[in-house]
């Protein structure tokens, strides 16, 4: 039943048009919130349809749609999803529902603009994951910056202007190289279809330049050390909803871009330069872990922990070359890539939950300084339970989704090189250290001051918001198979592309 509908188009344009309707209705419209919630829930339900109608057995693009868009250059409105993009689309639509709920009472100023920005962004992000035409991808990839730029700049903290302009210019700087790479690929292949790009043969030199262009573009998004500095600023200044979307989705576009462009289009250059990505990833895991330890601002701490966790994603994607060098058995490489994907999805939920938890505290206390808190669990026992649970998940406690991805990548890393695995495994110590120390300082101990003593526990809205995330984190942690099954054949196809030289 789902295959008859242009489901992907619906998923893209329903939130975009819905957002415009919300926007037009004006700021004083009491319907802005319920209408936005309705649109985001309908989108979520439709996106579940992708999961239901998805065929696990094939790596081919599913739910494909094609229409001519700019005929002069043969640019098409081509959509389709595989095992990589489908989970990310569901993550996007789920996160948007959470963001709408999270902003329900908190946002009092320009409510309809706020809701509209997130709805439009949702459509654009789904479109990024679903695009099969390079220019279409790029258009959505860039267009997404506009609402996020406004969200941080309008509803952000005191230093929001600096943060949002830095965010915009940083990501724009990365993505213009992507544009050059795409245009060059068109020059070589005569087509703008991403799947055609996968087939085109390139010399090692061409591949190297293209790979570096992809790497700059997507490393800024991921973000990888040393181009990560926009992220802590953006997170600290962004409103809670902005942080959630930033952490849950936009960072994933970086990882997704590497999977969709860098690995299959430039496999030889990826292999030749895997040392670069692997070392940057390990620096992110270890060094940024230490940086996180030193933070005094809650949001900054979580932002750095995001960078460290995303290091696992890039590590997982690029150790496959070392595994191929050591063994002909493909299962280790499958484990690495699947681990990276699971890590992305899981981090989407956990980071969202962490930022929401900070948001809950910030709404009551209006500070994010760790030193302003202490003994919160005494006055907010239910919230304390959730916060400790999400912190454990962030630290990679077995049984939560945070464990699965990291464990898969570390396991695979052993097949590549012992020291990679060793360094990656330090995250189990570092991650636990900075997360648990933060929890200790904020949650436990004596009640630090009068403000904390007067805190009220979660209301029903906040409870369900956090509870739904907790259920998912637990579910993926206990039974990750439904997630890994959908991506299995796509992963194997990617690895077959990666292992074939294009020279």
């Amino acid at each position: 039943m789902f295959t008859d509908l242009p489901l992907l188009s619906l998923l893209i344009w329903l939130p975009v048009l819905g957002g415009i309707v919300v926007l037009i209705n004006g700021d004083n419209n009491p319907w802005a919130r319920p209408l936005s919630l309705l649109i985001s829930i309908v989108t979520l339900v439709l996106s579940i349809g992708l999961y239901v109608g998805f065929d696990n057995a094939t790596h081919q693009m599913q739910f494909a749609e094609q229409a001519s868009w700019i005929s002069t250059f043969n640019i098409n409105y081509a959509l389709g999803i595989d095992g990589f993009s489908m989970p990310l689309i569901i993550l996007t639509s789920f996160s948007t529902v959470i963001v709408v709920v999270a902003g329900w009472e908190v946002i009092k100023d320009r409510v309809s603009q706020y809701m509209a920005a997130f709805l439009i962004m949702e459509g654009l992000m789904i479109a990024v994951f679903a695009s099969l035409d390079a220019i279409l991808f790029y258009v959505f990839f860039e267009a997404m910056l506009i609402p996020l730029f406004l969200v941080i700049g309008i509803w952000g903290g005191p230093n929001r202007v600096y943060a949002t302009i830095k965010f915009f210019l940083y990501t724009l700087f990365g993505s213009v190289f992507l544009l050059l790479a795409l245009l060059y690929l068109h020059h070589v292949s005569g087509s703008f279809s991403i799947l055609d790009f996968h087939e085109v043969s390139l010399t090692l030199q061409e591949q190297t330049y293209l790979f570096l262009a992809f790497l700059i573009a997507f490393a800024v998004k991921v973000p990888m050390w040393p181009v990560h500095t926009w992220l802590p600023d953006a997170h600290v200044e962004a409103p809670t909803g902005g942080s959630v979307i930033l952490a849950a989705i936009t960072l994933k576009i970086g990882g997704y871009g590497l999977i969709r462009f860098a690995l299959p289009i430039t496999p030889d250059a990826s292999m030749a330069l895997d040392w670069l990505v692997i070392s940057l990833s390990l620096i992110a895991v270890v060094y940024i872990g230490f940086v996180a330890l030193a933070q005094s601002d809650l949001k900054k701490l979580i932002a750095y922990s995001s960078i460290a966790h995303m290091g696992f994603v890039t590590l997982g994607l690029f150790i496959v070359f070392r595994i191929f060098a050591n063994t002909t058995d493909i299962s280790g490489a499958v484990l690495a890539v699947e681990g990276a994907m699971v890590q992305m999805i899981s981090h989407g939920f956990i980071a969202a939950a962490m930022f929401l938890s900070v948001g809950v505290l910030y709404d009551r206390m209006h500070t994010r300084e760790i030193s302003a808190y202490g003994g919160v669990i005494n006055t907010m026992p239910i919230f304390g339970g959730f916060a400790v649970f999400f912190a454990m998940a962030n630290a990679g406690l077995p049984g939560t989704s945070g464990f699965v991805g990291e464990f898969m990548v570390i396991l695979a890393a052993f097949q590549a090189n012992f020291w990679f695995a060793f360094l990656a495994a330090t995250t189990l110590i570092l991650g636990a250290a900075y997360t648990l120390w933060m929890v200790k300082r904020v949650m436990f101990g004596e009640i630090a001051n009068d403000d904390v003593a007067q805190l009220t526990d979660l209301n029903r809205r906040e409870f369900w918001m956090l509870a739904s995330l907790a259920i998912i984190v637990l579910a993926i942690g206990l039974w990750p198979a439904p997630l890994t099954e959908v991506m299995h054949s796509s992963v194997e196809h990617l690895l077959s592309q990666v292992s074939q030289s294009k020279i």
Partner: protein
Amino acid sequence: MTFEVLNMSLALPEMFMLAMACTILMVVAFLGKNSAKMAYILSQLTLAVTAILIYQSFGDSGVTFDGTYIKDAFSDVLKLAICIINIAVLLYSTSYLKDRDLFKGEYYVLAIFSTLGMMIMVSAAHFLTIYLGLELMSLCMYAMVAMHRDSMISTEAAMKYFILGALASGMLLYGMSIIYGVTGSLEIATIAETIQAGGLDNTVLSFGLVFLVIGIGFKLGAVPFHMWLPDVYHGAPTAVTLFIATAPKIAAFAMAIRLLVDGLGDVHQHWQGMLIMLSVLSMIVGNVIAIAQTNLKRMLAYSTISHIGFILLGILSGSQEGYAASMFYALVYSLMSLGAFGMIILMSRQGFEADNIDDYKGLSRRNPWFALMMLILMFSMAGIPPLVGFYAKLTVIKSIIDINLISVAIVAVLMSVIGAFYYLRMIKVMYFDKPIQQEELQAPTDMRVMMSVNGLTVLALGIFPGSLLAVCASVFS
């Protein structure tokens, strides 16, 4: 000896416009001080009817007036664009002129004559026709800049514009005369044939070419021939700036194509290098200096210089696709520039120019709709999709990559990142800062509608750029 009957019908739009321009001149002369309103209505009518005449004759082509005038798809599309843009320009400028006691018939007479000059430039098949059109256009514009007689800054701008403009025309004429010396013809088609046949003195030819390129560079405002541009944009009354910043760029682009591509296309390798220099310098200087501006008109002037750099990219590629990309860029640039300067007029009122960036503080709270329009225009100029400015940059950069000038393409994209900064600052001022003034907008309804149409067109063309791109591509195939 036979006499050919001139095929006048090919030039019908120009002849109609000339007749109407003379009529308006008479009306203004006889009605005196009260002629402005009449002149305004007649001018709009003239432009509209001319546009219809051009549209109806789409598809006819030919050369007439003894090889001096050409009508082809290229000229039709550009002339139509010039007419439509000038209709919008006149519409925007009315209330501004009224508020400043500049609402006089002369403005409209000059505007129509200048438009006629642009149309002649676009349709030129002969060096002399190009020169005539260029001078008709420019002389009217010098006078328009100086219309605000009591303003020191306007007078200075007019003086500068006139002197540098005359210098540029001199350069162009000198170049033309050298080319005439080499090829023995002033007719563009004959020159092209002579060069193709070969056997010419290449040194002298490229010597003449240098002067042609300098002339074109001056008229477009490419670095290092850009000095007049910020001062004129800043000094002229905003209504005149609006006029200068839009349609004349299309005409100058047409002149570049007629001279360099139609005439000297075969020595493409000689002018390509020069244009690369002009283009790269324009993009760098324009974007970097724009960052330091506090006056919006000056900022937009430097942004114009950088856009000119991008337009030159397509021309220098030397491919049909590149020319089409440049044409697309020139049209899109005029549309965006129209909106941006139109916005300054929209925001201004009696005794208040609204040309400082700080005047836009908190605009999104005072007037969310027009702040959104300005946001669309600024993001479009910055080249962010899904707005039409993105496709303009995309197509010119594509044409550069297709001829393997990757390093130039890298400069171009880096400069567009730098350029994004000052457009973002404008959005920051409108959306993130607190308003410092609370006055209501005083703009009349027709202007508000025009502004909305302008902004929404930029958005709509950004979502469906296919048709305009197809038109530009068809012109050059």
